[in-house]
């Protein structure tokens, strides 16, 4: 395998994982905040549903996603009308990565928000700040270490995504083939050296990402 190909697969994987991490932020922050601070009916249900991709076989999650976004699926129909194709494109890779990384992000951020002393939020409220302003100026900054750690964990999880990706994005060289998927394809077709090379690359990236996450969470953050 040429170096060019390794670079292509690696950069594609990092780019899609980064995009997926960005995609996790808005729903992830909202869910983490709702679960940490919200009092509403069905909280347990939301809590459980968010973590479901963590324990379900990724292939099963992939099949559910495929059903949803396939051209004739409930979401896919709307997307097709809007001229957006997802299945078997890089967008499917990002979607699979985001869905699989979301539970880790939400769980980490939620724990961080729960650590934030409510007295600060109460003080902000009495000073005239509505819930949104309280969240963005007090809760979020005070849980920043957890948000960073959650993002790195979600990113690391996205990097290694395989099962759901294969289901909705396939393994198209140069278009949907990520590191994990390429390793499987190469091993499957007897290209053991190429597979081993990519294993090395994945291990290196994952190591750096996890070390970063551990460093962030071990830092004495802002005392909350």
């Amino acid at each position: 395998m040429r170096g060019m190909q390794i670079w292509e697969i690696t950069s594609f994987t990092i780019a899609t994982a980064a995009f997926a991490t960005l995609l996790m932020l808005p729903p992830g922050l909202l869910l983490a905040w709702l679960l940490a601070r919200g009092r509403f009916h069905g909280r347990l249900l939301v809590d459980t549903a968010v973590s479901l991709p963590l324990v379900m076989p990724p292939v099963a999650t992939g099949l559910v996603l495929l059903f949803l976004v396939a051209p004739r699926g409930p979401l896919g129909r709307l997307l097709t009308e809007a001229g957006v194709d997802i299945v078997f494109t890089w967008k499917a890779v990002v979607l699979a990565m985001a869905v699989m990384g979301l539970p880790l992000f939400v769980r980490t951020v939620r724990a961080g928000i729960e650590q934030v002393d409510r007295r600060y939020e109460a003080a902000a409220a009495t000073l005239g700040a509505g819930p949104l302003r309280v969240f963005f100026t007090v809760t979020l900054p005070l849980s920043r270490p957890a948000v960073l750690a959650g993002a790195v964990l979600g990113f690391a999880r996205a990097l290694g995504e395989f099962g759901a990706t294969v289901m909705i994005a396939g393994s198209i060289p140069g278009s949907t083939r990520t590191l994990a998927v390429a390793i499987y394809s190469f091993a499957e077709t007897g290209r053991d050296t190429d597979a081993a090379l990519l294993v090395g690359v994945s291990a290196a990236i994952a190591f750096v990402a996890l070390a970063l996450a551990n460093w962030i969470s071990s830092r004495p953050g802002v005392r909350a």
Partner: protein
Amino acid sequence: MIVVDFRLSQGSFTLDIRVRLDRPITALFGPSGAGKTTVLDAIAGLRTPLAGAIAIGGRSLFDSDAGINLPPHHRHVGYVAQDVALFPHMSVRRNVLYGRREGQKLLLSTVANMLEIETLLDRNVPQLSGGERQRVALARALMSAPEVLLLDEPLAAVDVERRRRILPYLERVRDELRVPIVYVTHDRGEASQLADEVVVLAAGRIVEREGPQPDASGNGDAA
């Protein structure tokens, strides 16, 4: 005039508070667990009574019959909690300006000068002493142009010497800004030194109301 008339269940007992406060400084005095802080929380909107009404200057903040329950950020109540809760991730200046309302006339320089915190503005919260935190928290609450100032044991965390030095600041707030103050304390001497009226709480009920103590008049101009 602050009308406080509510029932609120707290642990083993129910608070039943009925009082009209119309003096510049009212002290809520009573032993720990009497419900003093809960009264402040209810006025600020941090706890919701079972029933009743709370109003400041004719503006209804809570009225169970009328279905009114303004959220804390619409109540215009300055609340300095016992632990002051300065935002640890902001400078003193950002803390003080956090609650500044649009169009309000009170200047940062006025408040900073009055409470003598000008030199602290560019410091970070962890660098402040207990007495400095109290003054900064007071400034932060004042900058939100509150219609009433709620202070929960503002002097509990500071030593006797600092206590003596903070009291005049509270008197300046009363005299120069004319913001009514409701002041929680479990120190009888403190209550009578500063307050125009002392409301005594025990087990969630008002058991006594007193006007100014005879010996308080001489200390009023200690500033």
